[in-house]
């Protein structure tokens, strides 16, 4: 207790700075008084008595110092003193302070925000109990990346036989939008079809109402019940608890809302938040692909599981792989993939594709580069300033400050700068998170506290680490020499040191910018998009099947729509199709050459799509060989197909596909054309083989064949033309529902949000690195030129012309910067091979990536040298000379 009490008293004394000076003085006076009296009693004369008393007392100042140290906490008091000096110092140099703080703040703030985004998309665990044991049980194709899904009977088989899971559930969370009639009108939202035990497997509790009962998922089509997502309920149903129990139309079928999902649950596929859940027994209402979505003929079912106690992912993998092999043997004709992947439920589809894993590495490296650039620039600024402060520090040393004390003073300054940078950085991070949230409305994005904390720690570390070097260096100098040097115009060793510093700073910036440029360039190459402008293509969904048209009437209607659209002003071409161009071609069926009698289980699997005449003209995709479908290809004519290059190369590696016959599923068709493979996202991804069959030649026995996704190419912006297009179609028959109007571009954005996110991040990082390097270089150069004010004044006073002096300063400055750039480019070229495994489509010596940074830096350098040089020359020489 007592030591604590003592420390409290000492702390209070230090903080309030209330040292009891009167008491100290009194004690000294009393002591000396008593001693003097004692001496007098010994018979000394009064002056001598007092002198002896003072002598006996010893050093008065040492006594006071000792006493005061005991009163308070000296270390704390010195620290507070250092802080006061540092604050004064920071106020005196607002330019430097602003540059250093801004560099740190921008570096940390934006990096934290973007890393939070990456975390939210890729890494955040599901908000469910014991999320680490919830896994995706995916089916894969070994020769092609990506999950392919199971059929519902496959799922039932797994559920019955898998031993590694306490529970398995099925879902399809990535369906095309469901149209939900809300009080504010129909809305297209992402919905999921799930088995009744989906929510119980995840161990969630409903916000309101209840989840599905097992019985509600038993009889196909009987129980039309739905659960709404919390955000959807909040924004579209005004958070009204009365919604539970009412009827809401989904895809024109009345559903009873039985519950609301908990607030932070958005489904299990990251980046694709579900707003509605319906049981698998109601799958047919939502399925765009299959008439009997629960049959073995249809895929698209995803399986999730909760690992049984003491079961590892590897054990589960072996278990499921064995079961999938059994399925494959039992149903060789089914398009079941031959691989299995069991992985934790987190992350987005991009991660599911092994081929895209480099993207994550790319992002991590880019974020690291930004932090390096920021740190390098702050270090440069601090070093430059440390050099300038030699004289001040020399004076402090000369009048008795200890080296340790000086280093502490400098460190306190650095830490204060770092804290200021960190606090400003947090503010920027919050602000940037808001901006990013607007860009990614579907991502549950908030600044991740852990990331912000790490950022703050890095700021502190950067401040201290970069502060220590100049502190040590500056306090080593002999005070007398340092003072003399500082007052001379430009000490030779000092200017070499400072100029060397700028060379290094420029070189490091060029190296880092070059690396960043290469990363951005490879990303662009990796994801260069479809190769045409998807914003020029409008898509509407037409469903005559919903209004009970006869086949004749429906087909006539579809034909009328195309004819009417193609004469509409601004419309260049129109074509019906079975699905939007941005979707993966479905269903996948075996394709074989006629006469191939090998085991169908090993047949080549190809995606299929139904498209009308002029479909590829509508998209803007070139026909490589042969022709498109046209009006000759009717129901009565020969069955025709167009294949993409991947498929053509597989069967006819030497070309000449056009005119050949091929069997796609049950149909024997003649190839009339070859088109380029559509690559929407990644150039790394091997494009799937696709056979395009003629929309007008499809089997009309199926009522849903009447429906189409009609693609329309317009001259201007598709979104702007949509209302007019919809009016024109409605004029043909107002009864047919027109739904999901949108541009192909918007569809791609929704489908490949992850890619867009990654691109935004990389471009932000690139711009950020460039911005930080710019600030850093400007500050360092302006500083260096301002240092030469005195020298410039002397030259002018001695009669040099302004042009001469200006040229001298400029040439010198640019020479230094050029040296740095040469060194940086050399470093970049030699470091390139280390990056090679991260690069795609660019060589490590890509000239554009390497030169872009230096060009900007040279412009910045020119400005950074000219402005302060002009200011220095405009100053009167007298004032400049006296200013030191």
């Amino acid at each position, binding site marked *: 207790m*007592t*030591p604590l*009490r*003592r420390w409290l*008293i*000492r702390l209070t004394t230090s903080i309030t700075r209330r040292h009891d000076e009167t*008491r100290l003085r*009194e*004690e*000294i006076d*009393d*002591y000396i*008084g*008593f*001693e003097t*009296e004692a001496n007098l009693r010994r018979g000394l004369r009064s002056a001598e008595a007092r002198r002896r008393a003072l002598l*006996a*007392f*010893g*050093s008065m100042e*040492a*006594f006071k110092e*000792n*006493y005061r*140290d*005991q*009163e308070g906490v000296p270390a704390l008091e010195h620290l507070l003193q250092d802080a006061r000096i540092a604050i004064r110092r920071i106020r005196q140099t607002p330019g430097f302070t602003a540059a250093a703080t801004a560099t740190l703040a921008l570096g940390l703030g934006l990096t934290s925000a973007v890393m939070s985004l990456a975390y939210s998309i890729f890494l955040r665990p599901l908000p469910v109990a014991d999320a680490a044991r919830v896994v995706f049980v995916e089916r894969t194709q070994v020769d092609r990346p990506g999950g392919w899904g199971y059929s519902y009977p496959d799922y039932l088989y797994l559920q019955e036989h898998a031993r590694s899971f306490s529970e398995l559930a099925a879902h399809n969370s990535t369906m095309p939008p469901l149209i939900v009639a809300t009080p504010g009108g129909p809305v297209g939202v992402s919905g999921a079809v799930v088995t009744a035990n989906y929510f119980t497997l995840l161990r969630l509790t409903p916000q309101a109402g209840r989840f599905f009962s097992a019985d509600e998922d038993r009889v196909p089509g009987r129980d039309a019940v739905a659960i709404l997502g919390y955000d959807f309920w909040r924004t579209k149903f005004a958070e009204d608890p009365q919604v539970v129990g009412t009827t809401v139309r989904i895809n024109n079928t009345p559903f009873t809302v039985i519950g609301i999902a908990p607030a932070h649950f958005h489904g299990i596929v990251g980046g694709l938040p579900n707003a509605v859940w319906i049981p698998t027994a109601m799958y047919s209402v939502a399925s765009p692909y299959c008439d009997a979505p629960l049959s073995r003929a249809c895929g698209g079912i995803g399986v999730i599981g909760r690992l049984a106690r003491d079961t590892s992912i590897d054990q589960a993998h072996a278990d499921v792989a064995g079961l999938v092999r059994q399925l494959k043997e039992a149903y060789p004709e089914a398009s079941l993939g031959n691989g299995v992947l069991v992985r934790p439920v987190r992350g987005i589809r991009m991660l599911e594709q092994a081929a895209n894993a480099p993207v994550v590495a790319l992002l991590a490296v880019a974020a690291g580069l930004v932090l390096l650039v920021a740190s390098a620039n702050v270090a440069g600024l601090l070093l430059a300033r440390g050099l300038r402060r030699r004289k001040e520090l020399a004076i402090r040393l000369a009048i008795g400050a200890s080296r340790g004390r000086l280093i502490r003073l400098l460190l306190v300054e650095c830490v204060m700068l770092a804290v200021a940078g960190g606090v400003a950085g947090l503010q920027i991070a919050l602000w940037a998170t808001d901006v990013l949230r607007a860009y990614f409305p579907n991502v549950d994005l908030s600044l991740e506290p852990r990331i912000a904390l790490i950022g703050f720690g890095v700021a502190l570390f950067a401040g201290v680490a970069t502060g220590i070097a100049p502190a040590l260096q500056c306090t080593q100098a002999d005070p007398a020499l340092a003072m003399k040097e500082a007052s001379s115009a430009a000490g030779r060793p000092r200017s070499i040191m400072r100029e060397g510093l700028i060379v290094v700073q420029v070189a490091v910036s060029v190296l880092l910018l070059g690396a960043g440029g290469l990363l951005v360039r490879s990303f662009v190459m990796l994801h260069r998009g479809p190769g045409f402008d998807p914003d020029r293509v409008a898509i509407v969904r037409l469903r005559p099947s919903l209004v009970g048209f006869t086949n004749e009437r429906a087909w006539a209607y579809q034909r009328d729509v195309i004819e009417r659209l193609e004469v509409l002003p601004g419309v260049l071409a129109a074509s019906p199709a079975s699905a939007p161009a941005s979707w993966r071609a479905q269903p996948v069926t075996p394709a074989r050459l006629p006469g191939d009698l090998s085991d169908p289980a090993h047949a080549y699997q190809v995606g299929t799509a139904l498209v009308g005449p002029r479909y590829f003209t509508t998209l803007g995709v070139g026909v490589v060989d042969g022709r498109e479908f046209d009006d000759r290809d009717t129901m009565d004519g020969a069955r025709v197909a167009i294949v993409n290059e991947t498929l053509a190369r597989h069967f006819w590696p030497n070309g000449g596909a056009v005119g050949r016959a091929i069997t796609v599923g049950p149909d024997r068709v003649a190839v009339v054309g070859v088109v380029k493979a559509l690559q929407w996202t990644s150039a790394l991804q091997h494009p799937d083989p696709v056979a395009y069959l003629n929309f007008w030649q499809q089997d009309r026995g199926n009522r849903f064949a009447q429906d189409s996704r009609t693609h329309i190419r317009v001259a201007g912006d598709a979104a702007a033309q949509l209302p007019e297009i919809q009016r024109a179609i409605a004029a043909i028959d107002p009864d047919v529902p027109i739904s999901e109007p949108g541009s192909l571009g918007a569809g791609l954005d929704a489908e490949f949000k992850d890619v867009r996110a990654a691109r935004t991040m990389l471009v932000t990082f690139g711009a950020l690195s460039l911005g930080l390097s710019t600030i850093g270089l400007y500050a360092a150069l302006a500083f260096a030129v301002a240092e030469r004010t005195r020298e410039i004044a002397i030259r002018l006073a001695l009669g040099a012309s302004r042009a001469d002096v200006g040229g001298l300063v400029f040439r010198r400055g640019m020479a230094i910067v050029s040296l740095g750039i040469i060194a940086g480019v050399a470093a970049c070229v030699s470091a390139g091979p280390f990056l090679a495994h991260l690069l795609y489509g660019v060589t490590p010596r890509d000239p554009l990536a390497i030169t872009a940074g230096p060009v900007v830096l040279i412009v910045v350098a020119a400005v950074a040298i000219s402005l302060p040089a002009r200011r220095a020359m405009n100053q009167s020489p007298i004032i400049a000379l006296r200013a030191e």
Partner: protein
Amino acid sequence: MKKATDVHRGTLALMVLKTLDVLGPLHGYGLARRIEQISGESLTLNPGTLYPLLLRLEQEGAIASERGPSENNRSARFYRLTRAGRKQLEAETRAWEQTTAQIARFFAVKAEDLP
């Protein structure tokens, strides 16, 4: 003569507490002289050692101080033992006695005494 700073760490505080316990309130100068006197002039206590110690003991609550009139019409700060200080003194006295008793046995021991 030995300087008080040379004596075993902590013993000076014990001396101060014991002196105040025996003689009642004293001012700093008087305390210094008394301690020297009790030690048989084998210690000198200078103010640079004494006053920070008094301050520390007061911060710890073992002693308290207030100004009051001294002999020969001067005023001075008088230090007195508090209740907490008395307890501390008792505890430290016991500990000290134990330690010295233990050490004494070691000094007294001879090889032939041990089995």
